[in-house]
């Protein structure tokens, strides 16, 4: 990877990529940001190498010895729960010659063995066995160069595990700022905890990763891009609740994180039933809602049960608590392509029927085969193709509702929050 320090003019070239004119209510982003390899190099160094990045959920490695491998922030990591229950993250590379020590997506192991020269590591990352160990000097053995390298920082909030590749940074909870309160609104949905349901959607979009950040909480595109999804909701007898889309608010959560919170006509498997779920479904949902009301004040119980939230935690974690809960993260594979991983999160203690409804709900909107996500992917790919014209048509507009006293969810305040933070970080001295 090229160094961002090599070219002093590079720093000058990334000033003013986000142009804001509050007096005139104008907010624009240079399309170069989605195209230029130099900008991706700076994003790697100043964003992905510095921010807290989502790795996984504790439920994915619930038992001692459970592990999974995952690519995060340009690294390839090993996420593992040791016999003592402690969760750690390592760089998935043998200290000897560098081969990945684990090639499985997930599993349960007592140790990890690199097949190249058969070095073996325990779940704490320590070298425990290798052929010809007696041929190494004590110095070579004890210098600590022969263990798996741990990720410098691993921390968690309400079951969500994050990594940071810097040795020192602000703590995770400070980094999350007010986003933590909105994570609480998801994690409080169960008293025994939430879990990632089996099955990962690993797909890709032929567009810059930041376009997916914008799209994930873009309230303005719903009616136009997703007309066929809304048609579908109308078609299902008893598939709707009487709530209008787009009544809601956008919130700046600090540190580049933002959320929109709103009512919508779809059912929510936590505690907003649609008639199609029948008497039994309604009774089940009412019991959950009543329990929420004993645990929280009525307003908070109502928010948890009935309101929808689309949140982007800077730079690339999406937590959308909508017709189901999606946890989605994505990383650039070049300026014009991003790799997406999406999961669904659910209360551990929900009934089998509600779990079934939740998965059914998820798939009608979300994911690479849903009624909506493929059209988002198409829109983002078309944006990226349109940037072929950036020499003459060089700016994106994000001015909607710029001077509104109360920004609505179909305004663009949440994207502006993202972009201000992006500009601040990208213009830092390397």
């Amino acid at each position, binding site marked *: 990877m090229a160094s961002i320090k090599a070219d002093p003019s590079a720093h000058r070239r990334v000033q003013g990529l986000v142009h804001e004119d509050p007096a005139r209510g104008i907010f624009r982003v240079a399309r170069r940001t989605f195209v230029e390899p130099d900008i991706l190099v700076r994003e790697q160094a100043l964003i992905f190498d510095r921010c807290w990045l989502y790795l996984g959920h504790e439920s994915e490695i619930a038992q001692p010895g459970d592990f999974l491998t995952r690519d995060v922030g340009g690294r390839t990591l090993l996420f593992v729960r040791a016999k003592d229950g402690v969760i750690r993250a390592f760089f998935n590379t043998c200290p000897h010659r560098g081969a990945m020590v684990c090639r499985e997506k997930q599993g349960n192991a007592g140790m990890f063995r690199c097949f190249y020269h058969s070095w073996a590591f325990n779940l704490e990352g320590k070298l425990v066995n290798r052929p010809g160990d007696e041929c190494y000097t004590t110095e070579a053995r004890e210098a600590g160069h022969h263990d798996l390298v741990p990720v410098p920082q691993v921390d968690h909030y309400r079951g969500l595990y994050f990594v940071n590749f810097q040795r020192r940074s602000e703590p995770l909870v400070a980094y999350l700022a007010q986003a933590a309160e909105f994570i609480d609104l998801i994690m409080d949905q169960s008293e025994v905890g939430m879990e990632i349901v089996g099955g990962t*959607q*690993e797909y890709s979009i*032929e567009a810059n990763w930041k376009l997916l950040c914008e799209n994930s909480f873009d309230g303005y595109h719903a009616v136009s891009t997703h007309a066929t999804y809304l*048609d579908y909701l109308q078609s299902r007898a008893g598939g709707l609740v009487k709530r209008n889309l787009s009544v809601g608010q956008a919130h700046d959560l600090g540190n580049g994180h933002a959320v929109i919170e709103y009512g919508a006509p779809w059912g929510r498997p936590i505690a907003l039933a649609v008639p199609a779920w029948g008497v039994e479904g309604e009774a089940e949902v009412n019991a959950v809602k009543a329990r929420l009301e004993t645990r929280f004040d009525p307003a908070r119980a109502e928010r948890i049960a009935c309101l929808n939230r689309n949140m982007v935690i800077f730079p690339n974690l999406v937590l959308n608590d909508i017709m189901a809960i999606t946890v989605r993260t994505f990383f650039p594979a070049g300026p014009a392509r991003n790799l997406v991983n999406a999961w669904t999160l659910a209360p551990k203690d929900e009934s089998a029927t509600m779990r079934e409804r939740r*998965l059914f709900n998820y798939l009608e909107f979300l994911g690479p085969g849903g*009624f909506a996500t493929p059209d988002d992917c198409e829109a983002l790919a078309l944006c990226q193709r349109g940037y072929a014209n950036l020499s003459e048509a060089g700016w994106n507009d994000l001015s909607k509702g710029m001077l509104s006293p109360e920004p609505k969810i179909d305004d663009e305040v949440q994207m502006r929050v993202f972009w201000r933070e992006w500009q601040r970080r990208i213009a830092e001295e390397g």
Partner: protein
Amino acid sequence: MNATATLTVTRAELEDFLFLEAALLDAWRLDEWLGLFDRDARYLVPAAGAPDDADPTTTLFYIADDHHRLTERIKRLNKPTAHAEFPHSRCRRLVSNVRLLGGTDQAFRATSNYLTYRSKMGETQTYFGHHLYEMCKVDDQLLITKKTTFIDADDIRDQNKVSIIL
């Protein structure tokens, strides 16, 4: 032996049916394709690499349609507002390794391997995998009661998404 408890369907008959199915999809004659399904039929696409016994009620799939949602999926794909498939992509489906897996004319299982090419705006995706069919023969007509399409890849990074019927 009770005649109704036997499987009279031949592989040749099944192949004719599956080749017709592929031809209808290639030609975007989706309403006719839907006519090959029983009124309670389901259409499922588990996440890439899923085992044959994957269950959509406990794991996250890409597609798990009941007949109503499948009908709506077809209505959607026929609209210009199904943006991912407007204009329609060009597709060609190759179907092979067709096998009858047993059962009776009232309920039998079959499998095939597939290779599907999709081309749109200068880019081509390749999908490969196998289908599992649950079918029946009613009034001399074959009908699909359940079609599960397995994508036998690690993931769908190369394919982006599943916006066509596989």
